[in-house]
């Protein structure tokens, strides 16, 4: 850590052709080869949720890239007018889908945040909170699990009921208060409850490792359980490396590249050691980050190549299963589902068709279209905590788009699940929020139930005939 900080702090003075100096003076400055690809055509403008909401050029992808260029060319300082647009960005990557020339806006934003983080480290209450969570909690599995246990205790012991009743939560900002109300019931993290290697069912088709994720494994451990079960049912031997840590996405989004790199190096070692064909992720945000470890560590001679090898193996669970050839469940799930494209699945990983194919393969599931399904719901990592106002506006639009006939809103990212559940609660709607893989798992569970029922029936019939014989 000590060493990393020092390296991060190295001063790099880059002379520009015009004689001005870049105001990005730290390592990992936004890459000129990346921003010079932007020709200012503006095709990205209306794909950007913050531009749609504000109409402001500097709150658009083109404007943000332009400001990054202005700082790099010494025409602008790193100050509030730079920080605000760079942090108002949801990092949703919708602009990358729209961009004709493939400008990597997301990476540029993350690099710019890295510069801001070092030029002006987060201070005050916000800084303390972000430091507490991003450096103190998320990177440490044991602390995270403890927090999970506390939350579980809080929910189960009746404390939640008491605190809600007494209005103790009124001291919190309203959006956090609301979030507490939609907090899912915290279960047992898979990393603790399951063995390190779970055997494949039937013929082994692949050996995969699973990223359990930090938020996913605490808040949505049932999603992780469903993922393991679905993989196993499809002939996968699943390795759950116990030493894995948080993927670093939240730190990277916040500009804390030092911590993100440390986590990346650790995970690369742990997962490569597992000797697997693929590394499976069920959280879109984590998947996108893991796929970009190569980019994150491109200046690290020791890890650069390993990171590329690692990133190549990373796959979202829905894409992995569809590519592998999913075993069609014999169980039925009779629900009307609308599918929300998590930004980091659709825009960052290009995974759009596979989750829909996966759902379409389940008997009883009826898919209904969600208009603008790939527009950000406002969750965006911890954006809904740091920018509640903008996040709220986007959430309202998302909920308004959910078709009335839908009973379930499915998606592939825990952040979106929390956010959309919050929106449904806020607008007093009734839809259930599920991870795509949970619906597949339900189908397999129903298959099992049907099988058991048939066995029971058969047994009782046999029992009946046995008694007959005895007579």
């Amino acid at each position, binding site marked *: 850590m000590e060493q990393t900080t020092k390296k991060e702090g190295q001063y790099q003075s880059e002379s520009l*052709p015009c004689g001005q100096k870049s105001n990005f003076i730290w390592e990992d400055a936004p890459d000129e080869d990346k921003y*010079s*690809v*932007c*020709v*200012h*055509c*503006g*095709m*990205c*403008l*209306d*794909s950007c949720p913050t531009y749609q909401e504000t*109409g*402001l*050029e*500097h709150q658009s992808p*083109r*404007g943000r890239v*332009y*400001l990054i260029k*202005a700082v790099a060319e010494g*025409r*602008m*300082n790193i*100050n*509030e*007018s*730079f920080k605000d647009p760079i942090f108002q960005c949801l990092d949703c990557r919708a602009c990358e*889908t*729209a*961009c*004709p*020339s*493939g*400008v990597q806006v997301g990476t540029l934003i993350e690099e710019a945040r890295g510069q801001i983080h070092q030029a002006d480290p987060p201070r005050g209450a916000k800084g303390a909170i972000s430091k507490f969570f991003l450096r103190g909690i998320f990177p440490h599995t044991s602390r995270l699990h403890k927090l999970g246990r506390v939350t579980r205790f809080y929910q189960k012991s009746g404390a939640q009921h008491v605190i809600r009743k007494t209005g103790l939560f009124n001291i919190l900002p309203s959006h956090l208060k609301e979030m507490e109300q939609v907090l899912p019931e915290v279960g047992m993290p898979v990393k603790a409850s399951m063995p390190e290697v779970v055997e494949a069912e039937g013929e082994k088709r692949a050996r995969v490792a699973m990223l359990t994720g930090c938020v996913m494994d605490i808040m949505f451990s049932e999603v992780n359980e469903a993922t393991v079960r679905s993989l196993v049912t499809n002939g996968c031997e699943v390795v759950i490396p116990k030493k894995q840590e948080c993927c670093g996405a939240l730190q990277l989004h916040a500009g804390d590249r030092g911590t993100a790199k440390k986590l990346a190096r650790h995970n690369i070692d742990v997962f490569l050691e597992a000797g697997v064909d693929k590394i499976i992720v069920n959280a879109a945000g984590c998947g996108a980050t893991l796929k970009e470890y190569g980019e994150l560590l491109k200046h690290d001679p020791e890890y650069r190549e390993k990171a590329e090898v690692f990133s190549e193996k990373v796959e979202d669970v829905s894409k992995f299963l569809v590519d592998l050839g999913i075993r069609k469940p014999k169980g039925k799930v009779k629900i009307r589902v609308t599918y929300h494209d998590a930004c980091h699945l659709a825009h960052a990983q290009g995974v759009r068709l596979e989750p829909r194919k996966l759902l379409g393969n389940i008997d009883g599931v009826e898919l209904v279209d969600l208009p603008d399904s790939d527009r950000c719901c406002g969750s965006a990592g911890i954006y809904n905590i740091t920018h509640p106002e903008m996040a709220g506006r986007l959430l309202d639009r998302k909920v308004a788009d959910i078709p009335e006939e839908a009973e379930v809103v499915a998606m592939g990212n825990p952040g979106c699940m929390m956010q959309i559940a919050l929106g449904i609660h806020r607008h007093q709607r009734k839809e259930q929020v599920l991870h795509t893989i949970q619906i597949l798992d339900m189908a397999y569970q129903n298959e099992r139930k049907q099988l058991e029922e048939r066995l029971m029936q058969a047994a009782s019939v046999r029992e009946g005939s046995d008694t007959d014989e005895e007579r």
Partner: protein
Amino acid sequence: MKKDNAVAGTDSLIRELIAIVGANSVLHKYEDLLAYDCDGYTIHKGLPRAVVFPADTEEVSKVVRFLHQNKVPFLPRGAGTGLSGGAIPTGGEVIISLVRMNKLLEVDFPNRKAVVQPGYINLKLSNSIAHKGYYYAPDPSSQQACTIGGNVAENAGGAHCLKYGVTTNHVLGLELVLPDGEIIEIGGVTDMPGYDLPGLLTGSEGTMGIVTKITVRILKLPQGKKTVLALFDDVEGASRTVSDIIAAGILPATLEMMDHTAIEGVEAGNYPVGYPQGLAAVLIVEVDGIEEGLDDQIKQIIGVCQKNGVREVKAAQSEAERALWWANRKTAFGAMGTISPDYLVQDGVIPRSRLPEVLGRIEQISQESGLRIANVFHAGDGNLHPLILFDSRKSGETEKASRVGSQVLKVCTDVGGSITGEHGVGIEKKEEMRYLFNDDELQAQIDIREVFNRDNLCNPDKLFPVAGRCVEIKRAN
């Protein structure tokens, strides 16, 4: 933090603007203005004094009236995707951004018209009336981002304008705020007697006032659509094909062409088609209309291609395939970012029959200057878009690109063409107006502008050659 703009008198100006539209609708700090120093044309840059975001026509009128009274120049801006610099300040103008006036006000299906605010995005109109089987025909390549207000200012075209005409053919009426703040309405009725004022305003590049409401024609979606892709080993064959298709009496909805450098760009971009190596040119031909008869037209077009030595020609087999061809073509300008850090796009128009000759001369200019030129164009109506590739970081290269652009336009006018088909004159092609008009003709146009814009406060220094080398100086004397 930097102190707010220190231009004398700016503080009270900002205060007044805030009083009219509110503090959340005025930008005035240096850093907040930076992103407004250019539009889709990046060669010229200029900071505005402020940017205001009026919410309705009344606010536009109040802002304009105040600026007019105080002799402060101003200009309208839509999405800022324009390619001739029409929305770039040249002397500290106040930018009046219309992006927050972005509503679809009315759709009248029986009378086939729609009323939109100027900040409404082009593609949204077609998307929101498609369920009833209608669409809005002008389709500039930037239609996913550009505004209809901007389209009116520039008289924007698009791939399908070969058959359906450019923006002016689809504007029925306008509400506009004159440069002194007065609100007027023009047109609105088909075949309005008297002068065609909407026709005059459309393409006036913001020099006659600020459009605040637009009534446009909407069309019934064609029953059928067929698209052909033709790959050529030589530009001449492709060019001849273009002329021969029209000569055969077919009027395709689009007749688009890209040359080898353009193909290199789009294939490196976000929507590659997977074109084979070594192509000299690609043609995209689309016919639409009543389903019966389309296949015959396609057969005829394929025949013409084969006669002209096409390497490969095929009709789209699915909507997805067709959509990919178009995504590839429509993102061509932006995709140049993959092969060059900067580009300057020209917009010359030539008689179709002169295509091979003009392309040859453009190639010659490219070789002489050492700058690569990619050609993407609406071949059917002879509207060329040579994209001059350069690197603004290399000293002198920006100026060289401008000079090359000018040379290309000279070639176009020499063969009897024009300097702009759909991007407007803006800042970029002011001087080249002289290729087409003599002093008297320019003065006649300036006289017309002055009927609307007496004090030349509304988007000054655009469209006509600059004072000093221009007729305006003669007038001042």
